[in-house]
């Protein structure tokens, strides 16, 4: 998940979080020209700190989302910008659509950049540190248990189908599957608890340290100033 770019060593998790927060605040807090500035900020940060963000633009649904914001707005009414015959494109609609698309694109780039460059365990570590202790541990358990539980689910489903489940009394069948799944999951959970106890592993641990980059503090301060400047436009 982490990139091997040069910016990685200079910008740590707090710096990347500051980038995301700055773009979201600039985009959400502004309208009109401010949305364009928020998009400019998102583009500059993506280029400088998290280039994998641009991968998000390769996804077809990102463009569908932007089209869904822009196209209906063109027919909003008001002063016509241009058009032929009965088809009239609205000038206020064009402005509104452009503003909405700029805001959405800015947030999309910032969120994709954050997700592509910050490992989920680091996010869990942040949550651990800020009021949700043990969540990183629970997430680790979930990641490890996911394939096992998916296999259990598939086996239970196949066994149930082979025994003629779902032919009648479907709600009861769903309930029986759920009971089997939960009972199996709990058995596996108890194995994990026993193994953790045997290794002397307790949940009362210090949360993992947050890795600060060299320029995180300066970056956060600069971004705060930029966001305030955008708001004051």
């Amino acid at each position, binding site marked *: *998940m982490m990139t091997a770019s040069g910016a990685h060593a200079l910008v740590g998790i707090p710096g990347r979080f500051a980038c995301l927060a700055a773009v979201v605040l600039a*985009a*959400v807090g502004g*309208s009109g020209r401010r*949305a364009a500035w928020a998009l400019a900020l998102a583009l500059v940060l993506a280029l400088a700190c998290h280039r994998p963000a641009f*991968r*998000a633009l390769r996804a077809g649904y990102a463009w569908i989302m932007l089209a869904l*914001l822009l196209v*209906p*707005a063109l*027919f*909003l009414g008001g002063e016509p910008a241009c058009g032929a015959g009965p088809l009239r494109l609205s000038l206020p*609609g064009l402005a509104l*659509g452009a*503003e*909405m*698309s700029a*805001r*959405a694109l800015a*947030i999309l780039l910032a*969120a*994709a950049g954050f*997700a*592509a460059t910050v490992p*989920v365990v680091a*996010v*869990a570590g942040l*949550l651990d540190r800020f009021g*949700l*202790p*043990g*969540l990183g*541990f*629970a*997430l*680790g*358990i*979930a*990641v490890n*248990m*996911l394939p096992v*539980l*998916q296999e259990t*689910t598939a086996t239970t489903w196949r066994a149930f189908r082979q025994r003629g489940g779902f032919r009648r009394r479907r709600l009861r069948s769903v*309930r029986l599957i*759920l*009971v089997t*799944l*939960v*009972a199996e*999951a*709990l058995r*596996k*959970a*108890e194995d*994990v*608890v026993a193994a*953790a106890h045997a290794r002397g*592993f307790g*949940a009362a641990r210090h949360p993992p340290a947050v890795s600060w980059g060299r320029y995180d503090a300066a970056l956060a301060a600069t971004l705060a100033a930029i966001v305030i400047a955008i708001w004051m436009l």
Partner: protein
Amino acid sequence: MRFGLRSLVYIGVFGALWGGLEATLGAALHALGIPFAGLLLASAGMTIALIGRLFVPRAGSLLAIGVVTALLKAFSVGGLVFSPMLAIVVESAIAEAVVLAAGIRRAGFVAAGAVALVWPVVHPLITQTLIAGRGVLAVYLEMVRGLMRWLGLEAGALAAALAVFLVLHLSAGALAGWLAWEAGQSAARRTGRVESA
């Protein structure tokens, strides 16, 4: 929110169950283009989370299961899942609040499921307003007006359709809560393991 080792393991396991459901059932439902796939998925997820709340009877455990599921979703899909992640966390938070208010009993679970499943009705409007601004509401309103003119419908028909949609979500949520209580009790009897924090 501080949980013991066993509670954290249970939270992880129920988060994995919900996350696995999102990955497998969610992908299948969306690929098959089944109507109300989101509602089915949210109901199934809420059932799992509420069963988890039964086995970890501590304040905040349902929310923690939701947060783990949301993070798992980000981990498995990679980026651009902000909207479903937010939906999972908010649904869990709503259900947690209702269970805290109504207590861990059948009626509390039914109420929690029903109220939590109202969120998917308003979720797209709220997230899109957050992302694209309030202008998106004006655009949607104009689109709905245009559609109603085109279909020759009156405002009453729209209100009736919205009411049916809302009742459908409430009913699905209530069913999820009831199923969670019944299945959870049966699983507790079968394993003899109701968590004592």
